């Protein structure tokens, strides 16, 4: 019980800090949603793109727009591990390693989700004409968004604890984050990607981001053209567990426990 209270207080402290950034997130969300609208709803259709891709691309961009936010959080962890070692203090608290790592991932996920809401809100207003309105879709959308962010945060946390600071600085973008974005059906829906490049699209199925983006596309458009949510949610859950246990293993290894 004491351990759990300690865990809750740590998460509360992280959320308290995040709360102070909410206005900044609102500004950034408005900027991002405006840019997405201009590019995907105005410019690309003028270049010949079929309008049915507009919401699909918007969903993909929502996720890729969150990657710098996750990177910023990861960078704080990497710098702390290399220099400040505040984590050593956390490790002395009466809390197990499993909960310490869960706190890291959960705080990062909730922080990214808070940062995400303004982009989604502004985007929903701008892309209103392209989206479907149905009861219950918001909760499914939020569940998929949470699971996707949790899986991505868990996997990237595992990477941060596993590799050195030098590796993180030099290769995190190109070897860690870019495959997640670009091999995750960010731009083109999976079925269309499969039609053009079947082998590449098969590779995309190994990426949890594919299921997150496709699931959200499926919810907001209601089209059977995308991977259904009944497939996406279990796969995202599986990836969340894999990421969490990977992060726990890397943390124990790094901290010599």
């Amino acid at each position, binding site marked *: 019980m004491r351990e759990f209270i300690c865990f809750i207080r740590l998460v509360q402290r992280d959320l308290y800090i995040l709360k102070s950034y909410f206005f*900044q997130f609102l*500004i*950034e969300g408005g*900027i*991002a949603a405006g*840019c*997405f609208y*201009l*590019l995907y709803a*105005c*410019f*690309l259709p*003028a*270049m*010949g*793109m*079929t309008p049915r*891709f507009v919401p699909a*691309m918007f969903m993909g961009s929502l996720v890729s*727009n969150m990657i*710098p*936010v996750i*990177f*910023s959080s990861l*960078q*704080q962890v990497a*710098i702390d591990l290399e*220099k*400040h070692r505040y984590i050593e203090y956390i490790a002395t608290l009466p809390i197990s390693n499993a909960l310490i790592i869960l706190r890291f991932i959960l705080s990062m996920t909730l922080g990214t989700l808070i*940062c995400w809401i303004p982009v989604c809100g502004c985007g929903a207003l701008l892309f209103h004409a392209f989206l479907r309105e149905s009861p219950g879709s918001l909760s499914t959308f939020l569940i998929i968004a949470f699971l996707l962010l949790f899986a991505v945060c868990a996997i990237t946390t595992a990477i941060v604890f596993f590799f050195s600071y030098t590796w993180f*600085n*030099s*290769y995190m*973008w*190109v*070897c860690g984050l*870019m*495959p997640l*974005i*670009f*091999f995750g059906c*960010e*731009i*083109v829906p999976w079925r*269309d*990607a499969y*039609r*053009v*490049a079947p082998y*590449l699209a098969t590779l995309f199925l190994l990426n949890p981001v594919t299921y997150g983006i496709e699931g959200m596309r499926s919810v907001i458009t209601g089209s059977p053209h995308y991977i259904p949510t009944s497939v996406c949610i279990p796969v995202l859950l599986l990836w969340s567990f894999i990421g969490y246990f990977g992060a726990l293993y890397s943390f124990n290894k790094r901290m010599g426990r």
Partner: protein
Amino acid sequence: MNMFTHILMREWTVYKRRIPYVVLTDCGLRVLFFGMVHGYLLPATGMPQGYGPSGMLYIGTFIFGLFSMVIAFSQELLTDYESDRHYDYLVMQSSAHTVFCAKLLFCTLILWFLSIGNFIFAKLLLSHWLDTTHLSLVPLIIMLGIASYTVSAITLLCYASLTSVVQVRMFWRRILVPLTFLGGYLAPWEIVYKVFPALGIAMYFNPIVYILEGLRMAVFGPVTTLLYLYIILLGAVGCLCALVGIHAWRAKLDSL
């Protein structure tokens, strides 16, 4: 040996051990991600071969590659400020100008080398999708050099001004997203101008437009005197960013 050369030599000594990995990741993998996914998959959305030659879209995505490559070098200006403060010692030995300019020159040269490698990989991987029949080699190499310089200067300016790692998020979401999305990243300037003429005119103030339009002109032709005007403009923007960056960095170092 003066301090400028000393800093360059030190950076090179650290960097040269990583060259094979950097060529593989920064040239090979980046082309695979940007070029292949955008070049091959975007035409599936109905654009005839991705708006003209699909290589045009690849060039748009190239700008993200440049920014993400330069971040690995610029990050030191921020992380060192929050921890070791090794740069304070260097600045005491010479001046903020010398250290910043050495860093900028090193970033530019490495980025130039990597961006040329990136293009070679792109041609090998994308083959006929990246139409190079009208490519002008010398203007392209000059454009890649000036693009590397401008992108390095902008990124170093931002990282020299940031005071906390938390603010890195702001750099991406407040500066890079509008600069690139409204800088001809996927949609070239002429399309933006056709859809929203006012926005097209406003884009004249965005240096990314000149980088991308210049690269497209050098690759797909025809090369006109406009390209040299872009090069001069980008050089001026780079100098301005470097000057502001030096002052911002100096102010940041003196603030403690």
